[in-house]
């Protein structure tokens, strides 16, 4: 396939000198990193991840760009700091031994001093200078400003802070200065005009009892930047920021196809099935066979000797296996041969980002061809819908870059089909949208299926009847009107009986819920 270059508008060729942070996502938001050889201010309350983010900036700088670094800790001692970042896979011992990073704890306690006249913080500058020379540092972190300036006279603070920023620029180091109360504090002291060229704020917010970390760039002199708040996570691999805009758009789109597992459905989809690497949504009211369709897809994928990850948010894996057994999909051997992997979790167990991360981790481990999320509507109980949508968008983007086909199922409530806002939001995002619903055909309820949309292919607009039997799923044409008696008569009496009993049992199920 020819690789298409997406044209980007360019008005001039000037690029602001930037320093790549090496943090996934952050470099995208800042279009190339933080200002080179200048200080950046990192603001945020306690427990936002300032220290970790600052450390990540240094460690990535060493690992990816071979830029030695200095970490000046005012709050924690070197030992404490090393212990705190131990949970993250930084090889600090080696970095320290190779003189790639130098950590110095600066003890600050103004209560121990007696003030006898004018002073400045020249001692700090001398120590910074020494530290920078020690490892020939290109990157520097001061953690945190609050501790350093605590108890200092306002006049000293003002002049010394200004001097510090100028000094850092002269030293040609890219610096991150963390501050807890930075925003209000600096504004209160009228310092914002001297403040760094780039200010990033971190935030740890609790919505509906679920915490999400967020990052926002408040200002960036001389550069464009993303204005939104972006969620980020901290795990053993460090920090990941998730911008919605990602490389997915530059990804080559596959023209390969993947079978849906229902031959009649494949027929409706240009006779070839879904596009590999596309996203598919199956929506429908309760009991219309969404999970069965998903399982049928998983079954056919595994039969083709490809791996599939089934993320169940409603039923336990064993229950799904048992239920699918009854309609002819024997998933057990596939689980045993590791073709099929289940991820099962209660949506409220952890926050969205952590679900996303856990799934991502399994994906990295087993490298599946197909990922199924059943149902995403269960995640809706968790956090506002816009969160879900952005999470799913990011997730779908990520899967696209990996060329993984993803199938979501969504339960919608009767009477609000097409009007369910959450569903609508997701349906505009996916490539193929299949709706299953109960319709009335000649005074009889029938399961039906139609392809609402399917990007990039000629698909059928027909509403087809949809039958689940012990032999799996099959589709049949629905004929309404006079000839319907003949179509009905085509069905064997036994089949008819089966259908009505299964309906009854479905109803039973629903009422028992």
């Amino acid at each position, binding site marked *: 396939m020819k690789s298409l270059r997406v044209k980007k508008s360019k008005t001039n060729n000037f690029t602001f000198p930037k320093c790549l942070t090496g943090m996934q996502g952050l470099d995208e938001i800042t279009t190339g990193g933080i200002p080179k050889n200048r200080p950046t201010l990192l603001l945020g309350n306690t427990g936002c991840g300032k220290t970790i983010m600052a450390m990540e900036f240094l460690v990535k700088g060493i690992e990816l760009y071979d830029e030695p670094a200095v970490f000046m800790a005012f709050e924690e001692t070197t030992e404490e700091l090393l212990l705190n970042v131990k949970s993250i896979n930084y090889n600090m011992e080696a970095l320290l031994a190779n003189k790639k990073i130098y950590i110095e704890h600066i003890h600050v306690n103004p209560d121990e*001093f*007696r003030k*006898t*006249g*004018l*002073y*400045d913080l020249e*001692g*700090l500058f001398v120590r910074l200078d*020494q530290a920078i020379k020690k490892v020939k540092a290109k990157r520097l972190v001061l953690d945190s400003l609050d501790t350093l300036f605590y108890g200092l006279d306002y006049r000293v603070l003002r002049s010394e802070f200004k001097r510090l920023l100028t000094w850092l620029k002269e030293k040609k180091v890219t610096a991150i200065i963390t501050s807890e109360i930075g925003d209000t504090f600096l504004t209160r002291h009228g310092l914002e005009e001297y403040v760094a060229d780039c200010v990033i704020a971190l935030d740890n917010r609790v919505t509906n009892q679920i915490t999400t970390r967020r990052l926002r760039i408040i200002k960036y002199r001389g550069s464009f930047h993303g204005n939104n708040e972006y969620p980020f996570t901290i795990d053993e691999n460090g920090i990941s920021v998730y911008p919605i805009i990602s490389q997915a758009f530059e990804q080559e789109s596959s023209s390969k196809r993947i079978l849906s597992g229902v031959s009649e459905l494949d027929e409706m989809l240009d006779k070839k099935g879904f596009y590999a690497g596309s996203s598919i949504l199956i929506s429908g009211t309760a009991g219309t066979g969404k999970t069965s369709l998903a399982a049928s897809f998983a079954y056919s994928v595994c039969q083709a000797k490809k791996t599939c990850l089934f993320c169940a948010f409603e039923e336990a894996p064993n229950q799904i296996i048992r239920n699918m057994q009854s309609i002819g999909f024997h998933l057990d051997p596939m689980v045993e041969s590791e073709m099929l992997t289940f991820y099962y979790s209660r949506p409220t167990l952890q926050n969205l980002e952590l679900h996303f991360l856990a799934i991502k981790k399994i994906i990295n481990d087993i490298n599946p061809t197909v990922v199924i999320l059943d149902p995403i509507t269960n995640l809706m109980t968790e956090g506002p819908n816009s969160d879900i949508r952005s999470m799913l968008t990011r997730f779908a983007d990520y899967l696209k870059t990996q060329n993984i086909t993803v199938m979501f199922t969504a339960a919608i409530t009767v009477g609000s089909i097409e009007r369910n806002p959450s569903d609508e939001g997701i349906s505009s995002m996916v490539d193929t949208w299949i709706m299953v619903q109960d319709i009335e055909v000649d005074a009889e309820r029938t399961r039906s299926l139609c392809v609402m949309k399917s990007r990039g292919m000629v698909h059928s607009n027909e509403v087809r009847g949809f039958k689940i039997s012990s032999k799996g799923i099959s589709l049949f044409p629905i004929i309404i009107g006079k000839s319907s008696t003949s179509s009905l008569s085509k069905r064997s009496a036994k089949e008819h009986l089966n259908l009505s009993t299964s309906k009854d049992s479905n109803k039973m199920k629903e009422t028992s819920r």
Partner: protein
Amino acid sequence: MINKISKKKKIKADPECAGEEKYILRLFITGILPNSARAVKNINSICDQYLNGRYELEIIDIYQQPSLAVQEEIIAVPVLIKKFPLPEERMIGDLSNTEEVLKGLCLV
């Protein structure tokens, strides 16, 4: 600055506090920056006046010996450290506030 001090009323040294112990003082400065220069003049005059003959003053320029700045946890300069008699006491600033300095030196 020295004139200013001599003009001031002499502060009486507290005999109980000011024993016969020898003082060990360290003054950390940064070259000839104004604050540092003043601090040197001030400490010399205070020592002459109140610790005649029973002090040992070491003036350290951290520009020349930066490693000592790390060792002694220096941030604000100038800073006078009273090493002995114990407890150790730190006084930051140009030492122009004689009364504060004497308090720090336990001479008042």
